[in-house]
C-alpha cells in the first residue's frame, strides 16, 4: 500500500473511532444512573426547581435527541458549559491543558533519556549485575504508585530538605509571565522573565521526575530487547572485527537501528503519562486537565466530564496515529 493511501485509511478509521468515543463518553454519563441535577441542587430541592434545572440543561429531552445535539455541538467545537465554572468547557480545557502538556513534555524527555540509557546498559551487560540492577530500577518505577512517590518526594525534598519548592506552578512571590501559550516555562522564556522561568523549572522537577520515572520501564525494556537483537547481527560483528572501539560500535552502529522500535512505544508511553498526570497534578496541586477532570468527576459536572475525557481521548489517538505514521515511514512493512 502506498504511504498516502495508508495515511488516508488510518485517518478515516480514526474519525470512526472518535465517533464511537463520543458515544462511549455519552453513554457513561447519561445511561449510568448518577444524578447530576441532584448533585447540583442537593437531595431535597422541590420538584419544580429540579424540572426547571433539567430543562435548562436539556436533560428533559429524549436521550437520542440529546446525543444528536451533543454530536452536533462537538462537530462545531462546542462542548457545552461547565456546571461548576459556568464557562464553556472548551475554554476551560484551553486554560488547563497547557499545564498538562508542559508537564508531559518534560516528563517524556526524562523517561526517554533514562529509558534508552538503562536499556543500552542492560543489553550490553546482559545478565550481569548491571543488567539486573537497571531492570529492577526501571520496573520499580512502573510499580510504585505515582501518587505515593509524589507524596514521598514532596516530604523529602520540600518539607525535610527544603531543596525544592512545594506544590503549585510558581511561588506566590513570583510575578507570573504574561499568558501566551499557557505553558509557564515557554511564556517566561518568550517574555524574558528569567525569575519566573527559574522558579517554574524548580517547581516542575519533582512532578516531571515522578511521571517520567514511571514511564521509563517500557522504553528501557524495548530498547534492551531491540539492542540485543541488533548486537547479534553480522554487521556488528564485522564492525567489531574491524577493530572499532566498543563505544563507536554501540552508539554509532547498533543504537541507530535499535531505536526504530522504540518509536512505537513512545505513543503508548504517552497514554501512561496522561494517566499519571491525573494523579501527579492532584498531588502537586497543578491546575492541569487531569485535575480538572477529577474535580468534574467528584462533582458530577457532566459537561466537563464528557468534554475533558473526550479531549484526552482525542489527544491520545492523535499521538498514536502520528506514531503509527512515523513508523510506517521508517518501516514500509508496517503499511499492510
Amino acid at each position, binding site marked *: 500500500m502506498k504511504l498516502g493511501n495508508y495515511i488516508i485509511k488510518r485517518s478515516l478509521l480514526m474519525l470512526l473511532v472518535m465517533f*464511537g468515543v463520543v*458515544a462511549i463518553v455519552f453513554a457513561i454519563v447519561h445511561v449510568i444512573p*448518577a444524578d447530576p441535577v441532584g448533585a447540583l441542587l442537593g437531595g431535597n430541592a422541590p420538584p419544580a426547581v429540579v424540572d426547571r434545572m433539567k430543562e435548562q440543561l436539556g436533560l428533559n429531552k429524549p436521550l437520542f435527541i440529546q446525543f444528536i445535539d451533543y454530536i452536533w455541538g462537538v462537530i462545531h467545537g462546542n462542548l457545552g458549559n461547565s456546571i461548576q465554572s459556568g464557562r464553556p468547557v472548551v475554554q476551560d480545557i484551553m486554560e488547563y491543558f497547557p499545564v498538562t502538556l508542559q508537564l508531559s513534555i518534560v516528563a517524556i524527555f526524562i523517561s526517554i533519556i533514562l529509558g534508552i540509557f538503562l536499556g543500552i546498559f542492560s543489553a550490553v551487560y546482559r545478565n550481569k549485575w548491571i543488567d*539486573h540492577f537497571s531492570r529492577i530500577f526501571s520496573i520499580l518505577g512502573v*510499580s510504585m*504508585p505515582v501518587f505515593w512517590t509524589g*507524596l*514521598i518526594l514532596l516530604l523529602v525534598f520540600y518539607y525535610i530538605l527544603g531543596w525544592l519548592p512545594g506544590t503549585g506552578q510558581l511561588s506566590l512571590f513570583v510575578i507570573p509571565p504574561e499568558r501566551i501559550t499557557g505553558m509557564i516555562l515557554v511564556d517566561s522564556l518568550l517574555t524574558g522573565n528569567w525569575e519566573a522561568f527559574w522558579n517554574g523549572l524548580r517547581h516542575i522537577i519533582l512532578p516531571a521526575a515522578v511521571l517520567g520515572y514511571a514511564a521509563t520501564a517500557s522504553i528501557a*525494556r524495548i530498547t534492551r530487547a531491540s539492542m540485543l537483537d541488533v548486537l547479534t547481527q553480522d554487521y556488528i560483528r564485522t564492525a567489531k572485527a574491524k577493530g572499532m572501539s566498543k563505544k563507536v560500535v554501540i552508539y554509532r552502529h547498533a543504537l541507530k537501528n535499535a531505536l526504530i522500535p522504540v518509536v512505537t512505544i513512545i505513543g503508548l508511553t504517552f497514554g501512561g503519562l496522561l494517566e499519571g498526570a491525573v494523579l501527579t497534578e492532584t498531588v502537586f496541586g497543578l491546575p492541569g486537565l487531569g485535575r480538572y477532570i477529577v474535580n468534574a468527576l467528584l462533582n458530577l459536572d457532566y459537561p466537563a466530564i464528557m468534554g475533558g475525557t473526550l479531549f484526552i481521548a482525542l489527544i491520545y489517538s492523535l499521538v498514536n496515529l502520528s506514531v503509527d505514521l512515523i513508523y510506517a515511514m521508517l518501516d514500509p512493512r508496517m503499511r499492510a
Partner: protein
Amino acid sequence: MILEKVSEFMEKRKPIFEDWKHTFYLWRKTKLATVGTIIVLIFVVVAIIGPLFVPYDPIVQNMKDRLQPPSFQHFFGTDQFGRDIFSRVISGAMIEVEIIIIVSMISGGIGLILGVLAGYFGGVVDEVLMRTTDMFLAFPGLILAMAFAAMLGPSLINTIIAISLVGWTVFARLARAEAMKVKNQPYIESIKALGAGKTRIISLHVTPMCISPVLVQLTLRMGTVILTAASLGFLGLGVRPPLPEWGAMVSDGRSFLVEQWWISTFPGIAIAIVVLGFNLLGDGLRDIMDPRLRR
C-alpha cells in the same frame, strides 16, 4: 501393577513433562521471575491467613490511640482514627486479591468469549468487535476507569466493574488472533466432517486453545489492576473508607504527611512491593516465552 500403569502413563506424557521441566528450568534461571514469584506467593499467603493474626481490628476506631508513631505496640503506627496501620495493611491485602481475581475473571471471560466468536465467525462480527476495541483503546485506561467508577458511585464492587469494563479489550484481541489461527487447523476440519455443530466446535475445541495466551496476559496485567484500583481509591473514586484499601489509605494520610509520615508511607510501600512482584514475574514470563531465549 499400578506402578506399571503409572510408568506407562509417564512414558506417554513424556514430552509434556519434558516441556514443563524445561519451563521450570528457565523460570529458575530467570532470577527476576523467581524473585517476583516469591513476592506474589508471600502476598497471597498474607492475604489469606494474615487477617487471622492481625493484632488489632482494622476498622473499629480507637480515638485514644490516634496518630501514634511506629512502635512495638503498633509496628506501622496508627492513623487519625487510632486504627493500627499494620493491621489495616495486612487486611487490605485480601481486598486487593479480591479485586485482582474478580477483575481477571470478568475481563478475561468477556474478552475470551467475544474474541473467540469474532475470530471464529469473522466478517461483520469480527469487524464490529475490532472497531469496538479500537474505541475503548482510544482512552488511556485509568481515565476511562475513573469515568465509569465516578458515574457508578465509589465502592468496591463498582471499582471492580469499572476496571473490568476497561480491561477486556486486550484479551478479546488476543483470543481473536488465537481463534483465527485455530479455526483453520485440520483437526477442526475433521470434527466438522464428523458432523459436530458450531456450538460444540467453539466451546470444546476452539476456546480451550485460546485460554493459555489469555491467562498469561492476565498475569502480566495484574500489577496494573492493583495500581488502577489504588489510584481510584486515592482519588476518592474507588473503594471507600473505612475499608482498608491501600490507595485510599495513602490518601487518608495526605493531610498528616509532614508530622505523621507513617500513615501514607506504609500502605504505599505495600502497593509498590506487590506490584513490583507482579511486574518482575511478568517480565520474567516474557523472557521465558521469548522463543529466541528458549533454546
